[in-house]
């Protein structure tokens, strides 16, 4: 099959990924300019796709007037992120955070309110109050879906985007992908493209060994990161991995934000608190990791000191929202919050700006380094964005893309790219025999765990990189029996790309930073002289993975005294290696 046999679909704006940021982006384009055609393309089904498929327990980073200010938020995230942030991008989020809550509230999303109808903010951090619970938040996806229908956004479910297309001048020009049920390719020509493909959540292997037991929704296999890379976009700070605290063997978050305001906490085996750090950060994860490995480990979620009424409240939230199979997991092991502490562990590694700081580089308008290509949510580089940030950047990208598309003229597709991709897409189905995707995926993710998981050791990572490159050589052996397996095979391509990026980015930054996320045992110190900068990873003109640095933009909010206040709240000694 080649390009002549395929119809090319035209649209003004294409949104890839219909989880959280994607639907908001698509709706925003229509709100801005109803005349523009918008296609929302989703690997799964927009109704229940992405991280918030079953709702969310709450907003972790709500900046509500009277409880916190945008400046305060920007300052705190800057400090929590060891200074390496693009403050203008953080500020854009911070300023839009409250209007977005109001918008979602008007749309019918249920946030917790007090008895007079004011937002019922909870103080979890010491310097600002940012947590807004949403115990009845199961309907978020339904509400987004309703908006998509109302604006008549064209939804294409069960299509996996596999490569971005460019025009002959290097601007974005659309996308090529494949139907996950028929294996039919699809080509979309678009004047602007917004990527919202979520985290790269299938790089590492969960400790259980179950490939799909990941923290992130496993549909988020890093396709977006890989596509952006191949399109020549910059990725930033990939060595700042995501590692999250989780229940042992169950991928439900530790829910400090749910149980914390009600008195629950993370403890060691003796039922004592041990975390000094105040904010969800690499520093906190380093403490977690050390306790886990120490004589006081493992780590637990402690609720057994709470009143019956409170436990019932916690169970209602945790067992009906976000990760509702949690209750079944506990039943299977006869764990009862009233009597036992719940064993915890850390997650596999991933790239996720929602929880940490790595991803495709975007500025405060959501623009990547490729003209016409925008990025929002967990895949784009704005740190600690979580769900509300995905919505806000979805909105920002929607506005930017609408403006870009309105100005854009004729597009000349680069045909060569399309032909190449069609060959790649057909190969696994055409082979008579070969390696099943599952086997190759298991292998590369096992290598990631063995060689790339922090604490990071230079020589070990070098060996890991060699072994990952050897798997890359095997990609041509991938064999798929049906369209479903073809999707998995194409995901393996993305996973191998991400694994290589994780290794190379980690080797590039020769210092330790962000606590556990980039803890290099043989470079234990933070080197502000040399490394107070973003790291870049991109595809160079020869098609090789290349690195560079990007200066940290001048701060628009100075850290001032709060830096000291924050340090007071942190660990007494820095990472004591």
């Amino acid at each position, binding site marked *: 099959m080649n390009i002549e046999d395929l119809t090319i679909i035209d649209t003004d704006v294409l949104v890839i990924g219909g989880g959280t940021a994607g639907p908001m982006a698509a709706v925003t384009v229509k709100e801005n300019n109803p005349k523009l055609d918008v296609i929302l393309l989703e690997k*799964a*089904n927009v*109704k*229940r*796709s*992405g991280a918030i*498929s*079953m709702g969310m327990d709450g907003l972790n980073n709500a900046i509500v007037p009277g409880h916190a200010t945008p400046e305060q938020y920007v300052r705190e995230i800057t400090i929590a992120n060891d200074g390496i942030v693009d403050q203008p991008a953080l500020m854009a989020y911070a300023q839009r955070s409250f209007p977005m809550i109001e918008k979602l509230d008007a749309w019918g999303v249920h946030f917790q309110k007090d008895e007079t109808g004011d937002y019922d903010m909870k103080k979890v951090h010491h310097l600002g109050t940012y947590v807004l619970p949403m115990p009845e938040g199961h309907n978020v996806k339904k509400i987004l879906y309703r908006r998509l229908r109302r604006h008549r956004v064209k939804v294409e*479910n*069960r299509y996996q985007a596999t490569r971005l297309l460019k025009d002959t001048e290097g601007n974005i020009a659309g996308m090529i992908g494949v139907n*996950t*049920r028929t294996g039919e390719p699809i080509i979309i020509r678009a004047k602007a493209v917004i990527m919202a493909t979520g985290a790269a959540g299938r790089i590492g292997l969960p400790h*259980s*060994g*179950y*490939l*799909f*037991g*990941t923290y992130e*929704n*496993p*549909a988020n296999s890093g396709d977006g990161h890989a596509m952006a890379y191949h399109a020549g976009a910059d990725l930033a700070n990939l060595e700042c991995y995501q590692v999250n605290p989780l229940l042992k*063997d*169950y*991928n439900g978050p530790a829910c400090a934000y749910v149980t914390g305001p009600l008195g629950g906490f993370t403890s060691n085996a003796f039922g004592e608190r041990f975390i000094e750090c105040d904010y969800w950060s690499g520093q906190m994860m380093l403490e977690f990791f050390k306790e886990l490995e120490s004589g006081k480990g493992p780590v637990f979620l402690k609720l057994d000191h709470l009143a019956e009424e409170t436990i019932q409240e916690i169970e209602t939230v945790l067992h009906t929202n976000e*990760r*509702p*199979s949690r209750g*079944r*997991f506990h039943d*299977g*092991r006869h764990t009862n919050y009233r009597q036992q502490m719940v064993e915890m562990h850390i997650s596999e590694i991933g790239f996720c700006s929602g929880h940490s700081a790595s991803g495709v580089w975007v500025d405060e308008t959501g623009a990547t380094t490729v003209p016409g290509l925008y990025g929002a949510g967990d895949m784009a580089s704005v740190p600690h964005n979580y769900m509300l940030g995905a919505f806000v950047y979805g909105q920002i990208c929607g506005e930017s893309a609408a403006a870009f598309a309105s100005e854009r003229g004729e597009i000349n597709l680069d045909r060569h790219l399309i032909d190449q991709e069609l060959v790649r897409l057909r190969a696994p189905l055409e082979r008579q*025999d*070969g*390696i*099943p995707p599952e086997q190759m995926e298991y292998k590369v993710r096992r290598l990631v765990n063995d060689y790339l998981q922090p604490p990071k050791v230079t020589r070990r990572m070098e060996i890991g990189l060699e072994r990952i490159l050897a798997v890359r050589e095997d990609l041509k*052996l991938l*064999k798929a029996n049906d369209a*479903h397996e073809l*999707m*998995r095979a194409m995901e393996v391509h993305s996973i191998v790309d991400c694994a290589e990026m994780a290794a190379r980015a980690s080797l590039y930054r020769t210092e330790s930073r962000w606590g556990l996320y980039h803890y290099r045992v043989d470079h234990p110190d933070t080197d502000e002289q040399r490394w107070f900068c973003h790291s870049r990873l991109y595809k160079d003109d020869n098609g090789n993975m290349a690195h560079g640095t990007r200066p940290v933009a001048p701060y628009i909010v100075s850290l001032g005294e709060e830096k000291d206040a924050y340090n007071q709240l942190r660990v007494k000694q820095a990472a004591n290696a």
Partner: protein
Amino acid sequence: MPLANHHTSVPVLVDEEKCIADKGCTVCIDVCPLDVLWIDETTGKAHMKYDECWYCMPCEADCPTDAVTVNIPYLLR
């Protein structure tokens, strides 16, 4: 490179008595983010075809007849 058949116990069960796929229902199949539920050609009812489950539960929550049960995958139980 010859391939072997490998069996696995799947976490999601469909009660065929309750399933109304024969009336045209495909709700669970539609909502699954990993596309692992399909119509079983032999019974005409929904079933789990691929053991690639995130135990996220939309299939169970959205099934109109309460035919779906999501269990925790054996490796994690």
